[in-house]
């Protein structure tokens, strides 16, 4: 603790020296020397953020101390901190499905008052350049269904480290056997099971399937393109309809034709098997691109091509990842806003993209430097156009439904539970949860 104090006073002198030389009163002067405590996930995008933070401190004199946690753990910590009178954190990165909880419990600052403040808001910020789907999915609350774009909504966070789903494939394997990159789900499923025949020992698609969040995530990934939804417009669970069964079947097929042990794969294992060359395709988030090109981790550098998430009855790639917001009980809200604005600005977004992060702006996806360094960026930008903000409901009780869906699907994958029966069970329990939470009050 003493060390921070010393650091703080050092920061003050440094800032003083800085302002003395520049002489011009800048927007950051009032806050130079402040130490912000921020909570970020242990995640490739935020690892890239860690690399650019020193740049922010150099530019503004604001110190940043980062508490990096695994993202499922982060939520637990935040739940505690946000409910205190005075929280530890000045800025948090939250998983998209935490949005519902935090906003509902009045724990995140509405950003309107910061963007209205001429001393804080940067006129060059160019909010229109932020990718719409992400903004509504991650930052917006109070619109249609409570979590979508809509006239009653407002902004509580800004997408940062947002992802969509994409299909990675092994160019060398596809060339060797003269295979076509799958464009539809039928092609994808057929090809996924053909690969193990063509290349003995190699799996078709690396998918996550581990019990809980992973299995649920993998299922939802297929649900949207196959035309399904978890709820209809009146909040009735329809996860057990035909599209739901089809999506579960698709997941099962992919896992069955996947690499060995696929049914217990978490995200890390799934990615690992692709990096290790054990699978021919990878269908999941865009966040992996940086690692696939890293020779320290990957054995498939330069062999991977990218394509859009295959189409079912419609295109619908996922929208996910993280947003950053200011806790209502933060101590240094204005400085936190400055950091948030800096990180998500055009320059910040480009910096983080070059450091291996996931950009959240259209301009960054089109940027020549970024594309030169990461040629896949253009395909990713294209995929964003079809990102589906409603692929998963973001409501406060989702955590519980998600866990149930995930464990039930894991049973389908490992214990050969009947799919229809399993999903009927999920729907029934989901209805009970929704009933208790009051979603049927108006019916």
């Amino acid at each position, binding site marked *: *603790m003493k060390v*921070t*104090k010393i650091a703080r006073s050092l920061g003050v002198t440094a800032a003083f020296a800085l302002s003395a030389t520049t002489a011009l009163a800048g927007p950051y002067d009032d806050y130079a020397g402040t130490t912000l405590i921020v909570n970020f996930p*242990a*995640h*490739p995008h935020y*690892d890239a953020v*860690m*690399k650019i933070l020193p740049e922010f401190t150099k530019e503004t004199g604001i110190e940043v101390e980062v*508490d*990096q*946690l*695994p993202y499922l*753990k982060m939520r637990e910590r935040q739940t*505690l901190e946000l409910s*205190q*009178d*005075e*929280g*530890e954190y000045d800025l948090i990165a939250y998983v998209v499905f935490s949005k519902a909880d935090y906003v509902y419990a009045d724990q995140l600052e509405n950003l309107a008052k910061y963007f209205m403040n001429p001393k804080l808001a940067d006129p060059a910020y160019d909010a229109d350049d932020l990718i719409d789907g992400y903004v509504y999915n991650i930052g917006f609350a109070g619109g249609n269904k409570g979590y979508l774009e809509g006239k009653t909504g407002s902004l509580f966070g800004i997408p940062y480290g947002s992802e969509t789903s994409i299909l990675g494939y092994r160019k060398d394997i596809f060339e060797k056997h003269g295979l076509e990159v799958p464009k539809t789900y039928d092609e994808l499923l057929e090809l996924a099971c053909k690969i193990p025949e063509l290349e003995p020992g190699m799996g078709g698609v690396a998918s996550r399937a581990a019990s809980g969040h992973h299995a649920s995530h993998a299922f939802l990934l297929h649900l949207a393109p196959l035309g399904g939804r978890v709820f209809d417009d009146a909040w009735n669970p329809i996860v057990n309809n035909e599209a739901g069964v089809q999506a579960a079947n698709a997941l099962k097929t992919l896992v069955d034709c996947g690499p060995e042990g696929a049914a217990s794969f*978490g*995200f*890390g*294992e799934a*990615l*690992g098997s692709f990096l*290790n060359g054990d699978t021919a395709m990878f269908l999941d988030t865009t*966040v992996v691109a940086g*690692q696939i090109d890293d020779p*320290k*981790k990957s*054995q498939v550098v330069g062999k991977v091509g990218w394509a859009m998430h295959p189409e079912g009855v419609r295109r619908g790639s996922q929208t996910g990842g993280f947003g950053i917001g200011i806790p209502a009980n933060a*101590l240094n809200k204005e400085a936190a806003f400055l950091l948030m604005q800096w990180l998500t600005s055009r320059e910040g977004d480009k910096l983080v993209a070059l450091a291996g992060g996931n950009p959240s702006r259209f301009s960054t996806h089109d940027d020549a430097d970024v594309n030169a360094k990461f040629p896949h960026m253009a395909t990713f930008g294209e995929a964003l156009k079809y990102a589906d903000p409603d692929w998963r409901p973001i409501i406060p009780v989702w955590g519980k439904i998600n866990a149930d869906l995930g464990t039930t699907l894991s049973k389908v994958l490992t214990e050969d539970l009947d799919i229809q029966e399993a999903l009927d069970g999920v729907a029934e329990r989901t209805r009970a949860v929704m009933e208790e939470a009051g979603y049927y009050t108006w019916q």
Partner: protein
Amino acid sequence: MHDKPSPAFYALLFTLIFMAVGPIALMFINSFKLDVDIVSGTGGLLFLPTIQNYETALCDVLWYEPDHIDFCSLKFGGAFVNSIIIALVSTMLTLIIGCMAAYALVRFRFMGRDVASLTTLMVRMVPPAVLLVPVFGLWNNEFCLDKDGLIGGLIRDAFGGRGDVCLAGTHAGIILVYIAMNLPFVIWILQSFIVQVPRSLEEAARVDGAGPFQVFFLVVLPLIKPGLAAAAIFTFRIAWNEYLLASALSDRNTKTVPILIVNNMSEFNVEWGVIMATGMLLAIPPIIFTLFASRQIITGMTAGAVKG
């Protein structure tokens, strides 16, 4: 009893030793491999050993900056210091408080003795998972000092930080739980050692004019050293290894090594080499204890079980 052991006997012995030590040796070897080597599985022992994993793990305490990492994400050094503080302090306090209590139960008849003795025995079975919910609630919300109050205000001024001063997130908070968790076991195990101390020695000392505390510290304690050693090792083991309660109670400054290891098994990036290196670092102190004090450990274990 002293028949010549057959070769089969030695074969069995070696198999058992191999099975007991094999996984640990595997971890040790893998902690010196690059991830690429671990994953591709090229040759068990044929690889170029590297200390890169240890450098990554210990990057916050190294005096130089290893060039293979861009920024130091693992704060292993800090967590190691936390673990040491928490384990040592809680072991010492548990021992002192525990052997005093054991002495009281063995040597004195006092009101409430039976209740105390029985309660101590019963709470031994409480699993840490059961304590999770109440301890989380109490330590974060109830066991707090108002930040505007006298002592709370002083603490906030002296140490900084935000909000009310609560037990959660402090070393003291974690140490308190560990002492409470270990006390019943320590009292229980030390009782069987104190019983064996001859009363005549204590009485002789008392005749010489020693007070009860002098008798205890100067006569009894030196005689139960083996018991203390055993109890110390077991207490240290739990305090050093515990994950669940520490993870619920610690904040970013008081994380212990087990938390760090679990957190580092982050799903985005299974870095086996670094994980193995951190695991190895966590395992080293208990391994050293075992090698040097195996007799005390075994005495402690048998004393524990035989005196049900």
